[in-house]
């Protein structure tokens, strides 16, 4: 599974993308975030607060409690601020 990070999530984790193979028990986006928190100090710091995070699965916005399903690309980022 390919992960993408943007804005301060990317900066705090220290990389913009990485490939991961989360365990079977990781079923939802929140599960994934929980699991990622254990990967490094940067991950723990960037992903500490669910309320400040949004996600897209295969380039569609999804609520954090969505099933990952057969996701190939998951992006985690702050609320958007374009325009």
């Amino acid at each position: 599974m390919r992960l993408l990070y943007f804005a301060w999530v990317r900066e705090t984790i220290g990389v913009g993308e990485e490939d991961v193979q989360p365990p079977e028990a990781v079923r939802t986006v929140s599960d994934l975030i929980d699991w990622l928190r254990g990967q490094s100090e940067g991950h723990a710091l960037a992903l500490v607060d669910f309320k400040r995070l949004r996600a897209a699965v295969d380039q569609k916005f999804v609520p954090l409690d969505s099933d990952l399903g057969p996701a190939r690309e998951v992006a985690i980022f702050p609320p958007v601020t374009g325009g």
Partner: protein
Amino acid sequence: MIRVSVDSAPIDVGVELAGIEESGAGGIASFIGVVRGDGGVTCLELEHYPGMTEAVLCDLAEQAMTRWALMSAVIVHRVGPMEPGERIVLVATAAAHRGAALEACAFLIDRLKTEAPFWKREQRGERATWVDARESDAEAANRWTG
């Protein structure tokens, strides 16, 4: 005609509007967002999610085309570093009558603000801060639902 562009080059308003005028519409509405220099901002940097951004903008343009029977919808968003006074975004809509063009233009910029994956970082001298999302933007986007 739909045109969506996400690019680091400056936005040329004359060229974009001339293009949309050729659609034979009676009315063209547009909105231009400009980097504000207040609060000591020296540089604004726009990050985005390549691929998803273009898909979201195309989808918004298609929704507007259908909902207001537009002849054209154009969304041009700049990314990368830019200075106060430079254009961040241009949204333009063409329709037979002005009401449709004006409403569709407001719809596109309101929804772009909450649905397109862009993130702004403001530089003030050496200090850079990521801009927080605003509650008022969510409210503006919600008025188009239903």
